[in-house]
């Protein structure tokens, strides 16, 4: 894992649970990744516009799939990857972690997604 060069959030954590956001943001910040948390889709859309987010992390169990669609589409348009944590794997090309997950596993998925979006050539190789 490599440290981020910028203080701008590269990972956006969308989860209504303040605890879940706190834990994940703390863990990612320790690996040198600047993060932002959002408790609602609307909040996430605003933060997505404001920051050069490369990975969106979503708790799929906390939202209706239809509710999530705008933020997932917005992230894709901006070239950000999406990592989904939940009970059932949703349809689509997402990194997926099944609940209850270990945080190391989730962080690994997020880093893999970061690598793929920030260094697509290296990821492909």
């Amino acid at each position, binding site marked *: 894992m490599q440290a981020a060069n910028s203080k701008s959030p590269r990972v956006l954590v969308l989860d*209504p*649970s303040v*605890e*879940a956001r706190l834990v994940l943001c703390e863990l990612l910040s320790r690996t040198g990744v600047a993060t932002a948390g959002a408790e609602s889709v609307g909040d996430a859309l605003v933060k997505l516009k404001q920051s050069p987010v490369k990975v969106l992390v979503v708790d799929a*169990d906390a939202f209706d799939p239809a509710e999530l669609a705008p933020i997932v589409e917005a992230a894709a348009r901006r070239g950000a990857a999406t990592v989904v944590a939940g*009970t059932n794997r949703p349809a689509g090309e997402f990194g997926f972690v099944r609940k*209850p*997950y*270990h*945080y190391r596993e989730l962080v690994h998925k997020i880093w893999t997604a970061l690598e793929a979006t920030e260094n697509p050539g290296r990821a492909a190789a």
Partner: protein
Amino acid sequence: MPSLFVIQGRDQGLRFPLNEPLIGVGRVGGNAIQLNDTEVSRKHAVFEQTGEEFVLRDLNSSNGTFVNGQRIRDKRLLSGDQVQMGRTLLLYTGAAESVADAQGDVNIVGSSGYDDGSRILHSISQSEGSDLLATPADQTQSPWLARARSNLQLMYRTSLAVSHTLDIDQLLARIMDMILEWVDADRGCIMLKDEITGRLTPRVRRLRRGIAPASSNGSEPESDGPKISISQTILDYVIGRGEGVLTSNAGDDSRWDPAGSIMMMGVREAICVPMQGRYGLVGVIYIDTSITPKQMLERQSANKFGEEHLKLMVAIAHQAALAVEDTSHYRAMVQAERLAAVGQTIATLSHHIKNILQGVRGGSYLIELGLGDHGKSLADGSIDIETAAKAVDTIQKGWGIVEKNQERISSLVMDMLTYSKERKPDPEPADLNEIVGDVVELMQARADEFGVEVNWSPADGMPSVMIDPEAVHRAILNVVTNAIDACEGHEPACVTVGTSVDERGEIATVSVRDTGAGIEPDRMQTIFRAFESSKGSKGTGLGLAVTMKIAEEHGGSIDVESQVGQGSTFRIRLPVEGPSSEGDAADEPDASDLRPVTP
């Protein structure tokens, strides 16, 4: 949605929704409906949707497709049709049809507004009505009428005997007892056809009281009473032809082979009738009797059974078969619904527990990180106040998360136990204001966290109320928690909790008003149902169901008024004198008795 419900066969109890325009049925994978039945073809039939209806089309299956007993090539299905493929019988239920509202067509008119001259000529009470079936005092009636009355009474008794049970063995025992009471038989048994093997299996056997146990072959009686030996020849005939038979002397009956088993067994008289149900043979009822030479001399007859007995037995057996079918189908449906409810309950609880476990993992992980930081700085001697404070802060954050989730699991378990347990409250004189005040104090921290203002207005002169303080505390806690959650993110965010008592001092009320989003009208009917939650992963959906249960156990109630965008007011009403002693709450049952989810 149209559906198929398996009412007979190995898949009994399964329900298949017809939610595609084309649904194949067969015994192999690849069919939308896969039946576990060796007599069903690999690709047996297909259901094709045409508008609101379905057409069933047989795909040249080996054993055919039947609708209501008729073999079909293709058939438009009506709700209630019975579809048979192999040994599997399915009930088709079509889309809900609109039923004309009869209310507009029937008027109940007050006596002042309507008089067509009709007057009451006769009236008869329920008990007098059943006299129709009693033996009349006038014994001069014709033998035909006496027999008809007697038979009518017997059929009436049969219909009563076969109703109101879900236990087939109990049902059969009732039928057999009734037959022995009405027909002068010594012994009898009922055999049911095994749905899988097709073989007859004895399910109930009865001896008429006073019949000495004696083995059929004349040897010493068995310790557990005599066995009833039934001629396979008779059974084959009854099953093969679907006819009841009476045999008083097998050797004189040309239908039997005199050398067959019936002659070896020495049965003097027997009646064996098929239990013919709606969809096929359900089983067989067999009764027999033997007459000693002495009895023949006394009776001046070698026969106890006659054609009348046979007719009666055929009628009883048909009634019994219908009852067995109904009981069997109803049991299957109950079982299916029970399984569905258990499945839903387990799925919902698993979901909540999983989220709580996820929270515990997150908190634990932060603690682990904090301890790691602290240990590392101790080990390399770099510890300073800032590093130590940071490590402690991380540990505290983690511990806070663990504690909160511990509280969540504790609350979930308490709600589950309260909801699942049929219990009588343990009322004692209590200060309702004190209980509500405790709840408000307890919830203050949560309200502060969410930026919600909580106001508390205790009633003056609140009398002592007979309640189970612990249960009522839980009920109010659930409502106040919901109110605070509902206000989160709203402006103003205010929860007002109050108590009051009515003028007669009979009903104490706890009201909880919030300024949250309010409840949509279509959700008002469901908010008190178990596992109904609008709080997503935050709520278990048990809180209001538990509160309602506690209120009702106290002889009270809960209601809600709500306006979307304005907020909601919940009112819990409790009788000051406590729950009525005539309440129907059961005694303490097994705690594992989880109540199924019912709407």
